[in-house]
């Protein structure tokens, strides 16, 4: 195991995880000396009846001072500002974020404003602009994917100015996360598949990209194992509580892994496809993950090969010759996508050509690929990718991922 010349690792989030842990919320708030939480969530979470589950579990032991359920699927500065006003008006003293990535981002944004008594969020964007602890924030994830319950990042969009603000600080880590299997039991199969593959992409890129460290590796291996064991199961059988808990733990572990080791080109391109064409993040990750591993194979194939152990189990690992293991991992990920495609009645896209919006329209028209490649050049995550990519490289990968054919190894740059 390689000890990096220098690394940092931090996850001070108290992790409370299990089948019936929402009941721990009142005690957890009390430990944080918080009495008047505001719930931040979205309509989907409310519609699925999950707010009721949380409220019932809290059982009147806490004064839920405000409930804001209008977080949009894409975080929005205006909403962040208006919810921060609500928080102040109602005299809240803490935040319960119940939802997926956008809800977590929004709650983190609100927290910056109310803690710093700021009006201009922009002043705190970038890395390490925050200097002190914020108000207590408890994250309660309703997807098993983003890992935002344990990450130090928030992304808030200013739709008026067409700006995307990123905030990075250990102070953005929630104080606690309450990961309860009940919260993902109703997640539909396609969303289960996509968010699960998002978690897998976190684990795999954390393990195979440049800023890895021994501790992030251990988190990534455990996450990979849990996803391989459980993702198809819960997609086929959404009520599988054990499987749901496995996926929820995997997402947390993968979030800790990539939060402490960064990610690479799969995320670079995924962000770009998301911002140019609006494809959900998890769907992008699922499609791009095998391509990232193929592209970097000459640099990190030995690391990809090791992932065969958590992905396929000890017997398959032992029976596969060393030099074939990395290819076997890529084949397994493609097979996972195929199985998830079948398990969701075709809603889990295997390649971008197949990605459809709610009305059945193609989301990634082929003529947008150059825009995507162009956008990728400006994404910071590329600096942790083992091999370099320029515009032509990005476009080459996108063309293959659009068609759904493996990369032509002859076209990969070998720096």
């Amino acid at each position, binding site marked *: 195991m390689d000890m990096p010349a*220098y*690394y940092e690792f931090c996850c*001070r989030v108290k*992790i409370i995880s299990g089948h019936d842990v929402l009941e721990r919320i009142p005690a957890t708030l009390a430990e944080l000396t918080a009495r008047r939480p505001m719930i931040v969530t979205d309509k989907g979470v409310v519609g699925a009846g999950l707010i009721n589950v949380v409220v019932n579990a809290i059982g009147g032991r806490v004064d839920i001072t405000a409930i804001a359920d209008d977080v949009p699927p894409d975080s929005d500065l205006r909403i962040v500002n208006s919810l921060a006003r609500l928080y102040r008006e109602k005299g809240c003293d803490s935040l319960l974020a119940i939802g997926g990535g956008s809800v977590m981002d929004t709650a983190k944004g609100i927290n910056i404003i109310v803690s710093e008594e700021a009006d201009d969020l922009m002043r705190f964007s970038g890395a390490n602009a925050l*200097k002190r602890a914020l108000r207590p924030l408890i994250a309660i994830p309703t997807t098993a994917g983003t890992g935002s319950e344990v990450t130090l990042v928030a992304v808030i969009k200013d739709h008026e100015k067409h700006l995307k603000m990123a905030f990075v600080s250990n102070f953005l880590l929630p104080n606690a996360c309450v990961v309860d299997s009940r919260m993902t039991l109703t997640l539909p199969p396609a969303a289960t598949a996509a968010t699960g593959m998002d978690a897998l992409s976190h684990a795999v890129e954390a393990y195979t990209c440049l800023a890895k460290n021994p*501790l992030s590796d251990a988190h990534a291996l455990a996450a990979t194992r*849990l996803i391989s064991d459980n993702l198809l199961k819960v997609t086929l059988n959404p009520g599988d509580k054990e499987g749901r808990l496995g996926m929820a733990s995997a997402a947390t572990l993968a979030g800790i892994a990539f939060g402490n080791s960064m990610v690479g080109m799969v995320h670079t391109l995924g962000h770009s496809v998301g911002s140019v064409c609006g494809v959900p993040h998890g769907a992008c990750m699922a499609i791009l993950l095998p391509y990232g591993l193929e592209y970097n194979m000459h640099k990190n194939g030995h690391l990809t090969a090791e992932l065969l152990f958590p992905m396929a189990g000890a*017997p398959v690992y032992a029976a596969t010759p060393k030099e074939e293991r990395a290819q076997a991992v890529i084949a397994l990920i493609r097979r996972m996508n195929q199985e998830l495609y079948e398990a969701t009645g075709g809603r889990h896209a295997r390649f971008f050509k197949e990605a459809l919006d709610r009305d059945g329209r193609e989301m990634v028209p082929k003529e947008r690929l150059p825009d995507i490649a162009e956008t990728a050049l400006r994404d910071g995550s590329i600096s942790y990718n083992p091999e370099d990519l320029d515009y032509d490289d990005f476009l080459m990968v996108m063309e293959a991922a659009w068609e759904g054919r493996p990369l032509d190894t002859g076209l990969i740059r070998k720096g």
Partner: protein
Amino acid sequence: MYLPERYEFFCPVKINSGKRALEQLPFELDALNARKPLVIAGNDAGEKGLVGVIIDAFKDSGLAIGIHDGVPSAPDLRLIRELFNIYRDRGHDALIAIGGGSAADTAKVLNIAVSGKPEDIEGCAGENLIKKPLKPLIIVPTTAGTGYEVSKYAFFAGRDYASHFLMPNLAVIDPRMTIPEDAVTTAAAALIALTHAAEAYTGAGKNPLADAYAYTAIQLIMENLVNVIGDQRDKNGRLSLANANALAGCAFSNVALGVAHKLGKVMGDLCGLPPGLCMGMLLPRVLEREMSEGGYHIADLLLPLAGFDTYASTAADMKARRAAEIIHDLLKDLSAANGGVISRIWKDIQVSEDTLQDIAQRAGVNEASFDIDGCAKILREAREGR
């Protein structure tokens, strides 16, 4: 993969490890809202040059630091009073402890006092009696660090403390501080960590997060301990061991105490031996016993001990046994690597039958397969080298 019905995990410790990690201290203090740390070190840290490295790290920072490098191996309450006054009178706002052992314990207990009042250190002794976060605490581990220093435990003047609030905000692992130590000290520290990590990985309270810390610690110890004992110049190996020991302390703080830990600790105290050497010699025997009683996570321990290939090529029903063997082998290799000093200590252990019963009783192990007779039997086997 094992997943408990419910679990909690908390590790507030940020880890900065590697080259020039100490130079990050001013920045990290700023993030902790502190500007004037009091550095606490053992009374041998100065002569080893460790205090000088810390002073250098602050040279360009414009921050004023205080230094107390006179902590003896068995400090008492007078020292806490003295340091409490210094901290208060000179306006310190954070603590930095160099190394493990008494310096770290002193810093932790002092932190209780400076975060409240000196009398609190009586009321807070025991389990989970600290009710709020303390002042910023940073630990700078050295090779002799066992991982206790980053854990939730502190031992001071006959009192035992356990609270997550005692864990440091930050551990700074810098190769300039993980200097060569004698083989016995190095081995004893790493064997405490190995015992803590292995028992976290196989025992009550096991969960995926604690597992990740334990897994990493075990791997790093297996890959580096014998080399470092054979050649203390192995700088990267020493850094790896310091990492392993710290990570084991984090895992250990989130699970129940294991049998090898409990017996080894009491045995060390009663027999005047390094507790790590006691825990190390007991660990494989405790695992064997647990195995025969159906302890089902021991087979999994083979993975961090030996790696993917060995794990995959070992038959399912042999994995647990193989794991215990590997630890026996490690102990043999340690002895060989160091010209027999460690094995002589093990060989020379004279534990009378009375002492042995005494250890078994005092260890407070209360598990089906480890009643007092069971514990005594393990100790007897270890004594006789069986």
